[in-house]
Every structure is written in C-alpha cells, then in structure tokens.
C-alpha cells in the first residue's frame, strides 16, 4: 500500500547531532596542559669539566706526548698552539670588523683533526675581557662539525670499525679556570 504523500518525507530517525561539547572540553584541557608544560625556551648546552691539575712528574711519566690543542682568545687574534709543539703555532687575525675569523679557525681545526683524528680534547684560554657570547661562538666553531665539512673517520677501539666522527673537538676545558694566564 502506498504511503500518504504527507508521510513520505517523514523519517523515523530524528536528525542526529553530534554533541561536541565534551570533546571541546577535552581539547581545551589538553591545550592548556601542553601550553603550561611546554618549554618555549629552546635551550642547548655546552658541557665543560673542571680542569684537573697535573704535576710535572705526571707529565714526564707520559709515554706519548699529548697534543693538548689550545686556543688562546686574544683581543686581536686567535692563537692555536700545542704546549709540546706537536703542531705549528697558528695565529688567526681578526677580520676587518674586528670580529674573530671563526670560519678560518674552523678550517684550521679540521686540518688538525684530520692529522689527529682520535684527539677529542680542546683547551680554551680566553682573556678576562672576552665576552660569553664570543666564548660560545669559539666553542661552536671548535666543537661542531658542519654538514659541508669533510668526513673524518675514527676507528672505534671497542668494535674496530671505522666510524664517522660526530664532533671536531668535543671536550672543551677552560685552561685558565683555576688561575694562570689572564
């Protein structure tokens, strides 16, 4: 039997409306939580251990002379040297705008790293007047390897496999922390 025209459009199911209010509540709570606990300050760190004082006797007892790669940050230049003269002393003068030539420093250190691939330590000797900003820039240039830098491979002593070095000179120590050169 045909339905009456007036009842054809009527449906038994009422229009379903999704109740979004609880979902909205959950979202607002989650956003509030995330915003409260989120670290908006994107910090990074440069780790440096306290230097250990070694006596001259200890140094004389060493079988092999260490490189002890040292960078002295002067007002007008950067000086790269080794106390045991294992590398030629290199002076990198500041650029025309009197800022240190960090690119040249990085290139010079890559050359040293290629010669001494297992060396990881670097001694930094800033002057008392050197700013923290400059110290961080020098450490960055001396510690990190860029994507464009040549690959430096180091033999892993445990596995005996050649591995790509992640850092240029990863362990930075302040040489004059306990006194000494200004």
């Amino acid at each position: 039997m045909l339905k009456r025209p007036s009842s054809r459009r009527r449906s038994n199911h009422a229009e379903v409306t999704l109740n979004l209010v609880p979902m909205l509540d959950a979202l607002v709570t989650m956003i509030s939580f995330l915003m409260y606990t989120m670290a908006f300050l994107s910090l990074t760190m440069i780790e440096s251990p306290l230097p250990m004082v070694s006596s001259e006797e200890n140094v004389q007892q060493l079988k092999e002379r260490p490189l002890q790669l040292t960078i002295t940050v002067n007002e007008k230049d950067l000086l790269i040297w080794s106390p045991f003269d294992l590398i030629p002393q290199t002076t990198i003068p500041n650029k025309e705008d009197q800022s240190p030539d960090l690119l040249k420093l990085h290139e010079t250190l890559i050359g040293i790293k290629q010669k001494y691939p297992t060396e990881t330590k670097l001694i930094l000797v800033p002057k008392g007047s050197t700013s923290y900003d400059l110290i961080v820039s020098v450490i960055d240039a001396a510690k990190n390897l860029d994507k464009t830098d040549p690959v430096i491979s180091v033999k892993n002593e445990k596995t005996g496999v050649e591995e790509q070095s992640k850092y240029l000179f990863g362990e930075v120590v302040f040489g004059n922390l306990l006194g000494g050169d200004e």
Partner: protein
Amino acid sequence: MAFRKSIRSRRGRKKIHKDFELQLTSMMDILVIILVFLLKSYSTSTNSFSSVPGIKLPISKSQEMPPDSLHLIVTPEAIMFETQRVVEFVQTADALNGGQPTYAFKTEDIDEGGMRITRLYDALNSAREKAEALRAKSPARDANGNPLPFDGILAIQADKRVKYDTLRKVMYTAGAAQFRVFRLLAMKQEQ
C-alpha cells in the same frame, strides 16, 4: 513617544529560536590545529630551566638538550642560584639607566685572591650537602653498597655580555664547592 519607540524596538528584535545550537565545528577545527601544532613542537625534555627578564643568552649551534640539574643564573644585577638571589653586583648609575652592567663584585663578597665568591660558595656548598644527605637516605647504592656520589653538575645561564672574568670566578667557586661539570646554557640555533 518613548513608549512607541520601545514597542518598535521590541518588534524589531529577532526572536531566538528554541532549537538554536551553537556551531562548534569550526571551533573544533581551530582547536585541533592548535593541538597538533603544540604536540609537534612539544619538547619532551624534562628540564625545568627558566630564564629571567633582561637576560640575553648567546646562540649556539650545539644540539644537546640540557638535562635537569642545579641551576645558576648570572643576570646584569645579580647571581641567582636555584631562583634565590645570592650575590648582587656593584650597580653604577649608568648600569641602572640601562647602560653596560659592571658585573663587579663587592670587596666583601670575594676572597682567595679575588677568585672565590663567598656567598655563592656557601650556597653551593649547602646545596651539595643537601644532595649528599638525600643520596645517603636513598635506597640507590653503588656496587660496594655505598650511596651514589654527588654528581656535581651545575648549569650556568649567563647574559651574553658577561665577561669571562666573571664566569671564571663563578666556575672557580663552584669547583671549590666540589662541582666538577659545568653546563653552559645557550639558545639553540635553528637549523
């Protein structure tokens, strides 16, 4: 006259239908987008380092996330250790008017040939003793059954204008209080 106006304004008002429902779909869209953005940029680090106003951190290429540790801040006005103002620098009129801060210590605040900051040393020593006492009570032990040694890690946050002379005194003092590792904090450079 006023009576007529009132009737007109009543007639002019649109009636709110009883079945009126607020359209929440667009609001949901916005909130979901915000949520996705927050989740994507949410840092999973557990550190709780905060900064203080007026301090400009240097920018570093380093990508290492600083884990939680004892925290020291060198601001242009003072040195703060664990949010407590420990030492105040000498303030000049120029520094107070927004000029170059001095970062100079008062004579009574330093000893050992001008290298050790006495008040900071006391604060760091006290923090170390507290940490050691907590470790002594903790059930965590090393292979010999002794309490775990004090890690001696200090995170240092300093304004980029701070001179090495000031930083050296801070690190020397921390070294005297048996802190062996310094974590210099900087702003991460976007790759």
